[in-house]
Every structure is written in C-alpha cells, then in structure tokens.
C-alpha cells in the first residue's frame, strides 16, 4: 500500500498517546488497605506464580479471596503468570507472597504500564489496523482516518492506561473474532472469540451476535449439506478451545464449579457503585435492590435483557450479513449493559468496541455515542485523578472524528441510515420530515449537558445531604443517552438496507 507510512504514523501516534496517558496516576494509587485494580492485577501475578494452579480460585491461608481474589477466567490467570515470570526476573520483591501486598514504586509502575502496552501492541492494535485496511469501498485516506479515530478512542485508553486494566486483550481478541467471522474465516474467528471469552467473561455480551451470525451462515448454506458440516466444525472448534483453556481445572468437578462461582458472583447484587444502566438509574426513585428478593432481581434482569435482545438476534439469524452483524453486536452489548445483572461502569467498553467498527457507516451517531460512553465513566476517572488526560483525549478524539469524517455535514436521513425508517413512518404521518434536525438538536443538548455536568462535578462541592449527587446525575444522563441509542440501533437494524434497496426501486 502506497500510504503505509501514514498508517505507521497513526499507529505511532496512538502509542504515544497511550504512553503519555500512562504517566498519570492509576486506580488506588497510595490508598491502602484495598488499593485498586492496579493492585488487583499485581496481586494476581503474586498468586499465580507462588501458588499451585489448584489453589488459584480457592480461599486459603495463602489466598484470601476477599483481597482481590481472582475472578476472571483462566486466560487472564495465565497472562498474569506470564507477567509474573518477567516480574520475577526483574525484581522478585514485586511478586513475593504476602510481603508484596500494596507494593508501589516508580519502576513497578513502569513495568505494569509496559505490560499493558505490549499486550495492546500485540493484540488490539494489529486487529484495528487490519480491520481498517480490509474496509471496502473507501479510499486509503479514509481507512487511515478511520484507524486514527478508533485508536484514539479515549474510553479504552483511559481505562487501560490510566485506571489500569487489560481490556485491550479481550477486546482485541473479540475484534480478531469479528474480523475472522466477517471475512469467512469462521473457524479462526470463533477461536479468537473463544479466547476473548476465556480472557474476560464480560465478552459474553458479544456472544449472542456471534452465535446468531454463525448459525445464520449455516442456515444459509443449507442445514442438510455444507451448513451442517460448518456447524459441526464450529462446535468442535469452540469446545476444543474451551477445553484447552480450562484443562487444568477439569481435573476435579469442584475446581470447575469454583471457577464458575468466581466468574459469576450472582450474590453480589443487581449492580455495584454507580453504573449508567437502567437498574441504577431506576433505583434513584425506587430502591429495587432492597425491595425485591434476590432471585426475582435476577429473573427481571434476565427477562428484560432477553426481550431487548430478541428482535435483532432473530433478524441477524435470518439475514446474516457482516454489516448487520456489526450493528447487532452494538445493540446486544448495549442491551446487556443496560439491563443485565451485575454490570460495571467499565463494561460500556464492550459496547464501544463495535460502535468503533461502525464509525464509517454512521460517523455522526458513533462519535456521539463514544463521547457519551467516555462521559459515563467520569466518576471513576475523577476518582483516579485522570481529569486532565480525560479532557485532553476526549477533545483529541472529537477533533479527529470531526475532521476526518466531517460529521456535522453527515446528518441527513440517508447518512443516519434512517431513510427506510422515516419512509415507513411517513406512511402514517406524512409531515414527519424533521428527523435529522431533531437529532442534531439532541446532539447539541446532550453535549451541553455533558460539558456542564463535567464542569459542575469538577468545580462544585455536592451538598452534604447528597454526597453522590453529581455521579448519580452523570449516570442518569448517560443512561438516558444510552436508552436513546438502544432505540436508534434497534431501528436501523430492523429497517436495514435490504428493505431500503426495495424502497429505492419502488421510488
């Protein structure tokens, strides 16, 4: 490719931004006794290298599960083990059993940050570059601009390099999965996605679209011929990759069950902290967590999630297409985020990833969503003292999107992919022509609210009676935005291009 160098420059820029953000503080820096996610990751290194594999997920004298017990699937544990070996080589104090608790030093921070950067560089960034290079029907320049915007998405950068997590690994694997499945490398795609699930169980948010898309593909090929063979192959791949990842834990029944119990802590409640989902927002008015019994909470959240998923998943199974697949990934992940049980604020990244993938199709809405998603994590970012990098990266991202897609000129019905929907609406309300204008106004209002709320949170002290006032407001506003996006994405999936093409012919 002739413009390879521009792509290299974009990747280097992405890396530079990542590393400069990582110079800032991390979660729980200098806050004993529990510290934060940074300490959790370090603690897992300590556990995995010092204890035999059988004790990793069990409470014991050497492994207090109350103190950042391992609660991610085996791949995370293996990754920790790998990092621990490197750490041991550099400085054994970093991972000494018991004594290394709450270990903090400049050198150690550097090491931890470097592990994130390396994982990112190996898994997520190549996937993004490849994804953008494989995009069809657009110029090289647009591909590069697309890569720039995806790589500059502030939410992921701030959580991985500021707060400290390894989301880029699981999201990167998921992206490899999307790539594989979209370009008919179904087996490799499903393998990559299994790895993603085995790195972080939250990737299950994406599992239904994957399942439906692959199933739809099998149906399309005919269940009695090639489709059946594909189905069998896929099933074997999935089972084999799962077995491979879980092998050490299959030796005893109790082991497997314990890992599963750690992965899905159903007794931890409907939601934690402040999350921009329905349940947290709703409990501002009505304390559901205290009123309803535990199993009913589970049932309700399950039903809501399932119902909201159903239409788009059925549509995808019946009409599998790479484009529909990407959109369904968005809507399903968003449904899970809004309605499911035990959601973290960071889970919004699982929605953001597929939204990044549709940046090209609907630049205006995607940019808007990605801004809101970063904003929804504001309380968390403020707690980690990441205000400055947050504001800067958000602005950089916004400028990148605005310049490379000129988003403000792309708000016509066609470009919002709402053409066929509004045509159907106009059958009943002929005067319904102001859709784009409404959306533009909504965008302005939404951005204004976000800016105002950010300013208020930063400058004002909340009243003493309501210490959480601002973070609740942030969640409330973001949740409203997310609900709107859920509706929007469902609409464009259900009125997808196939109808659109027919409509065009009719017109």
């Amino acid at each position: 490719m002739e413009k390879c160098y521009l792509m290299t420059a974009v990747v280097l820029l992405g890396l530079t931004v990542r590393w400069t953000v990582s110079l800032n503080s991390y979660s729980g820096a200098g806050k004993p006794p529990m510290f934060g996610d940074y300490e959790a990751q370090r603690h897992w290194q300590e556990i995995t290298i010092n204890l035999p594999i059988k004790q990793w997920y069990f409470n014991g004298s050497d492994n207090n599960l109350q103190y950042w017990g391992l609660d991610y699937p085996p791949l995370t544990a293996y990754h920790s083990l790998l990092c621990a070996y490197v750490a041991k080589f550099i400085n054994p104090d970093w991972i000494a059993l018991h004594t290394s608790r709450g270990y903090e030093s400049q050198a150690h921070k550097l090491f931890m940050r470097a592990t994130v950067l390396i994982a990112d560089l190996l898994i997520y960034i190549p996937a993004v570059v490849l994804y953008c290079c494989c995009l069809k029907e657009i110029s090289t320049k647009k591909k590069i601009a697309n890569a720039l915007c995806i790589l500059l998405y502030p939410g992921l950068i701030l959580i991985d390099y500021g707060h400290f997590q390894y989301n880029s690994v699981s999201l990167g694997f998921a992206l490899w999965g999307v790539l594989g499945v979209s370009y008919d490398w179904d087996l490799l795609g499903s393998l990559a996605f299994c790895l993603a699930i085995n790195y972080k169980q939250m990737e299950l948010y994406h599992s239904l679209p994957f399942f439906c898309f692959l199933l739809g593909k099998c149906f399309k090929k005919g269940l009695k011929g090639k489709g059946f063979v594909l189905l069998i192959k896929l099933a074997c791949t999935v089972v084999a990759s799962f077995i491979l990842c879980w092998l050490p834990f299959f030796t005893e029944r109790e082991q497997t069950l314990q890992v599963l119990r750690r992965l899905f802590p159903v007794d931890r409640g409907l939601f934690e902290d402040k999350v921009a989902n329905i349940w947290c927002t709703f409990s501002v008015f009505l304390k559901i967590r205290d009123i309803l019994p535990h199993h009913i909470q589970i049932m309700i959240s399950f039903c809501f999630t399932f119902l909201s998923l159903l239409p788009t998943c059925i549509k995808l199974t019946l009409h599998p297409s790479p484009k529909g697949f990407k959109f369904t990934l968005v809507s399903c992940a968003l449904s899970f985020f809004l309605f499911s049980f035990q959601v973290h604020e960071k889970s919004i990244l699982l929605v953001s990833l597929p939204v990044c993938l549709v940046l090209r199709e609907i630049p205006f809405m995607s940019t808007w969503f990605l801004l809101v998603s970063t904003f929804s994590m504001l309380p968390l970012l403020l707690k980690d003292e990441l205000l400055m990098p947050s504001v800067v990266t958000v602005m950089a991202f916004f400028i990148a999107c605005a310049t490379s897609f000129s988003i403000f000129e792309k708000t016509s019905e066609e470009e919002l992919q709402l053409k066929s929907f509004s045509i159907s609406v106009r059958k009943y309300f002929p005067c319904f022509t102001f859709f784009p204008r409404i959306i533009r106004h909504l965008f302005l209002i939404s951005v204004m609210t976000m800016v105002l709320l950010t300013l208020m949170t930063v400058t004002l002290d909340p009243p003493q009676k309501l210490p959480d006032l601002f973070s609740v407001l942030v969640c409330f506003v973001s949740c409203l935005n997310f609900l709107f996006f859920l509706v929007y994405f469902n609409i464009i999936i259900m009125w997808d291009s196939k109808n659109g093409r027919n409509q065009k012919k009719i017109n």
Partner: protein
Amino acid sequence: MAALGVATGGGDWFSALALGVTLLKCLLIPTYHSTDFEVHRNWLAITHSLPISQWYYEATSEWTLDYPPFFAWFEYALSHVAKYFDQEMLNVRNLNYSSSRTLLFQRFSVIFTDTLFVYAVHECCKCIDGKKAGRELTEKPKFILSVLLLWNFGLLIVDHIHFQYNGFLSGLMLLSIARLFQKRHKEGAFLFAVLLHFKHIYLYVAPAYGVYLLRSYCFTANKPDGSIRWNSFSFLRLISLGLIVFLVSALSLGPFLALNQLPQVFSRLFPFKRGLCHAYWAPNFWALYSALDKVLSIIGLELKFLDPSKIPKASMTSGLVQQFQHTVLPSVTPLATLICTLIAILPSIFCLWFKPQGPRGFLRCLILCALSSFMFGWHVHEKAILLAVLPMSLLSVGKAGDASIFLILTTTGHYSLFPLLFTAPELPIKILLMLLFTIYSVSSLKTLFRKEKPLFNWMETFYLLGLGPLEVFCEFVFPFTSWKLKYPFIPLLLTSVYCAVGITYAWFKLYVSVLTDPPVGKTKKQ
C-alpha cells in the same frame, strides 16, 4: 465544543493539526522536566519580587537571569498571571519549588505562548508556492510543511518535556522570515530586533538579516546581470531600518543604561567563563576535534608517547560545565572559535551579497549562519540545532536537494537531543515521537519528490539507518555491560560523534549547494 466542531468540521486541516499538537502537549504535562524548569521559575520570582535595578544582580539561586531584558519583561508579565496559580513560586528564596499548580502554570505558559508559533507557521505556509500541489491534501507542500513545523520533534521534547520557551521564540523568527518573504521588510526587521532582545543566541543569524536587508531592501534595483546598482541606494530605507533597530534596542537596554548597569547585563549575557563544550558535547566540529584528541591520547598512552601523570584528569563528558584542556591537540580558546565561526559564515554572506536570490537565498544564508555557528561556536548547546532545523523545513518542501539535506540534518540533529531525556518513563515517548516525526518527514518528502531522483544515496541511507543500532546499543545494551561503571561517558560520546558526522555532512552539502547554485538571472524582483 460545538464551536470547536464548526472550526474543524469544514475540512480545516490546519486548525486540526494545531489543536492536535496542542492537546499532545497537554498530555506531556506530567513528564520529566529539567533544571530549566527551576531556571524559569527563578526568573519569574526575580522579575516579580525585585525592582529592575536588581534583576541582573540577584544571585540567590545559581540560575541567574542571563537572557536579554525583553525575556525578563516576558517573565514579569507571566508572573502576574502566575500569582493567581500559586503565590509561593514567586518567592526568590523558594529554591527548587515545584507544586502541582506551579507545574501546571509553567507548562501551560509554554503551551499558550506557542500560539505565536502556530500563527507564524500559518504565515509561513502562505509563502510556499503551491505549484507542485498534488491532488490529495496529504501531498500538498503546505500540509507537509505545517506538519513538519507544528509537530517538530525537537520543539516538542525541548519545550514540553525538557522545558524551555523555544516555541514562541522560533515563532518570532519564522514570522519575521515570513514577513521578508511577503516583502514587508520593515516588519521583518522589527520582529527580528525584538527577537534579539528576547534571546541573544539569535545574534548568530543576524549577519544574514543585516546583509539581506542592506542588499535587497536598501538597494532598490539591480543591473540586468544581477550585480549591484550602486546609485539605487535608498537612504530613507536605511534610516528607517536603523531607527527601528535603535528604538527596539533603546526600549530594551535603555533602562539599564540609565541605571548604569549595561556592563553587568552584558557580563551575564555572555559568560565566556564556561567551557568549550557543554557537559554533553553538542554534535559539532569541536566534538569531532575532542574525540580525535581523546583517541590520540589513548593511542599515545598505549604507545608510551605520553606521560600519564601529565594528563589532566577532568573527563569532558562527565560532571558539570567546566574548563577543559585537550591533551594532544592544541586547546581551543574562545577567540579561536569566534574566528572559526566568522570564517565559516563569511562565504555564505558573500554569496548573499554578490548572488542575491531573493528571500530564498536569504533563508539559505540564515540557515548556513545558524549551522556554521553551531559547528564552530563556543559552548554550544545541542538544542541550538533547532535554530537551523526549523527554517530548513521551509526550504525542504521546495526542492529535492534541499529535502535530502533537511532530512539528514533533522534526523541526526533530533537524535542528538536524545540525551536530554534520560529518565525511563520518557524513553518510549522520545523513541515513539522521533519515529513518528522521522517516518513522516522521510515518507512525505519522498512522496512529494517521487518524480525526481531518490533523496538519499546508499551512503546516506546506511548512515541514517545506523542511528537505530546506535540507539539500541546506547540505551538497551550498554547499561547491562560491565563498561557502564568504568566508562560511563561512552554512550554520550558515541552519540555526539556519530551525530556530528551527519551534521557536518549536511552543513557541507548545503554549503556546496549554495556556492554552486547558478544565480537566478533574469527573474529579479523589483
């Protein structure tokens, strides 16, 4: 934010580039900063809390005020904003004071004053002829030039990590160059005079300004063959120029003249007590000279030509600024460097006088002045290479030959800045940014001149690629070898000698191209 969107939405790439780099600068706020941070804090304190009469006498801190008066006034102005951030940083006795608010204020002051630089780049872009304009935006000379200037690696790390105010000073210089290109000579002269009183290092390029203005502005016409027409001399123009320079100087130095402090001011501005080379050798002629001396002395010791007891112990690359005696070759005095510099500058000045080629010729002469003084000057800082790199960017988008010189000069010059940042967290930043800038500049200029002969011959390619292994050796291999304790200066020595070769080569090549270039002939202005 919406307004921001309107500003950038209309495909306005220039503001997007400028805003982008500004945001990157904001991200660099928490990085390491050098003692220059304390230097400027101290100057803030001096100018804020002491009367003018004390400015150039105050010596509580070792970092005394040694920039010309305008810079002192600049600090004075800044200090009146600084007091709203943190009053404590304005106390002269608060040595090494660095609260988070102080940090924020100082960093933002650099970022904010860089707006002048952005404006200057904007003006410079107007002076570039867009004849070669490609179809695509990224292949337009204007676009490439603004990236090369706005995202300049050297400025980013020297100003926004190491901490200095080169951005706005370079902005003044570029703006005055742009004014000369736009035939607004008086404005250009004024801006340069102001610049001189901000930082006197720009005296090095003053000959280019002086001769150019005299030759191409005061003489209003040429003979058809391009030689000078003596009777076209305009006294009015000369007097107006003189008046401008005089008034600016009077404004700057007048108060100190009135206080009878001029000798003290000058003794602060020109401290000849410092050594020939800075603690880390700038990659110039003297680095090669000193390295040769060192090699000769080692050979001499091996072959017993030299008596070990007579060799001075002071090793040049370690420790503070100090006097240094060469062992084998004759030691260099300030006067000798001055003479060398003058001799090196003279041919380019002659060229400017006898072979005037308009503003482009002036620009070449200016770069040669900057480079020659970098090559032969006394106590040169490695940062001074920016003085040549930035104006050279303007030339690079015009001609393939200049582009090749620019790339060699920039890459080696920028690499020689690496030792400025020696802390581990900044290591990835400097490597990433350097790669970003170098890859972009090489590839974009190659695309721009793809129809002409290749930019580098095999030797130059080999030399530039050699920087990679050098970096790997200096930062990743050497610290783990046993030599680290015995010869701690080796990485610095290698870096400066290796870069000195490249910069000398670029200087030489540029000189040759200036001297052999045919005069433009009939396309004379005015």
